[in-house]
């Protein structure tokens, strides 16, 4: 099992969700209050004359736990839908997932993921 963490542009959420649904990935979690700092330059804020470098830009963070056999599909769906070709499109990280439990039923492992 793998845990996928994807940072994407907020505007890309809709497209990513659609792409995932098409691949029949229906389960995910999204964190909305995320700021990202990367190659994207950021901008300058200027509040009451005091310059303020804002290099933390709004991003979304998606977390998806998948079984091995869905991994590539999921990655493809995200990259495909989130890519605009411009700096700031985001990153995907993949971690090994040791265990997964469905709270409602107590199921564990691969059965619990979907």
């Amino acid at each position, binding site marked *: 099992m793998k845990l996928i963490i994807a940072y994407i*542009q907020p505007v890309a959420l809709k497209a990513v969700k659609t792409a995932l649904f098409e691949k029949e990935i229906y389960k995910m979690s999204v964190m909305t209050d995320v700021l990202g700092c990367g190659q994207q330059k950021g901008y300058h804020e200027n509040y009451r004359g005091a310059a303020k470098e804002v290099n933390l830009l709004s991003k979304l963070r998606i977390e998806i736990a998948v079984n091995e056999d869905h991994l590539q599909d999921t990655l493809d769906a995200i990259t495909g839908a989130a890519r605009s070709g411009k700096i700031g499109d985001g990153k995907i990280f993949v971690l090994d997932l040791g265990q997964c439990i469905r709270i409602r039923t107590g199921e564990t492992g691969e059965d619990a993921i979907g």
Partner: protein
Amino acid sequence: MNKKNKYATAFLALLAFTPMYCLAGEGPSQELYWLNNIWMMVATFLVFIMHLGFAMLETGLTRSKNTVNILFKNTGIIAIGLLTYAFVGFGLMYPGDFNGIFGYCASALPLNEMFATDAGIGYADGCYSLWTDFLFQGMFAATAATIVSGAVAGRIKLGSFFIFTVLYVGFLYPWLGSWKWGGGWLDGIGFYDFAGSTLVHSVGGWGALAGALLLGPRIGKYVDGKVNAIPGHSMPLVTIGVFLLWLGWFGFNGGSALSADADYTSFVLVTTCLAAASGIVGSIVVSTLVQKKPDLTMALNGCLAGLVGITAGADMLTPMQAIIVGLVTGAIAVVAVIGIDKAKIDDPVGAITVHLVCGIIGTLAVALSPDVTFKAQIIGVLSYGVVSFAFALILFSIIKATIGIRVSAEEETVGLDVTEHAMSSYTSVS
């Protein structure tokens, strides 16, 4: 007495209800002058606070990334409105005796005098002072541009919008206003618009339509032929906005009585409030039927729809007719918002619905009164419509062709707060 109250007077005389003191041969008493003026000053304050109402309505119905921009526009509009009205608008709108189409009185507001020579009790038969007149009318002026602001929110360039505002408020609004309230040709043919369903709201609404058409929809609003909701970011702000607008309407309509005549003025307030209340009911009912669940933004739009609807005939319709106007405009508002969306015209706050659609309905509804003809109302609606829509379209087109009108897709995506102002509206980490 080339002012609106000519009509109030004529109307009252018509009904032989109570003779206005100023018809009585002898002039008004100092007491009447002062108390009339108090009323008009209070009305001025109320119209002023409508600008905060518009700012909150527009802010609440749009996304938080454009909030600073919207608040900035609305702050700028009221400044532009008052200053252009002081230098140009007041004289354009009330040119005195003129050809009925275009005139200008350069000395309307004496900017370099402490107390003008023609000021005092004789100014408007003791109905209000020169200064109050200017300020009350000036507060109205900025409204037209504010209406446009809502429809073009989230994608218009700040500078381009302000250029539009200066010309729309500084020139078009007062020029067209002179046709009716300045005693011009539409006044002559018996067109009736008590407080501005057409003169203010439709004029603003036509500008809103022109702007929305030329700008096109916000990115992501219409995708694959489907309408995509882009919810406003704060319903409490929307509610604050609408309640403040209702409050302001007490002055907008009440002050348009142009004197403190107890029965006349308070009658106007009753029709105004009943239309607002039934506008809410009308839109709640239709919204619940059409959308399955009652939509707060529709109920609040319905309130404004009723208010805009009754504005033309608040002193001409019975309370029961006012309730009907409210029910109808409130109901239509729901349908119109959805219909305009279906037509792929993106109007984030429903300005076209509330101010243009309901402004027209309200103006026509005055013909329910035996004293006003349907024909005169139609002529008024059409002539204001043609000129102001054409003016807005041409003005926006010139701006588009020269300095550009719409921010880049990237700026729109990031939000105008950051790109136009280098600020954020809400800051949590600092």
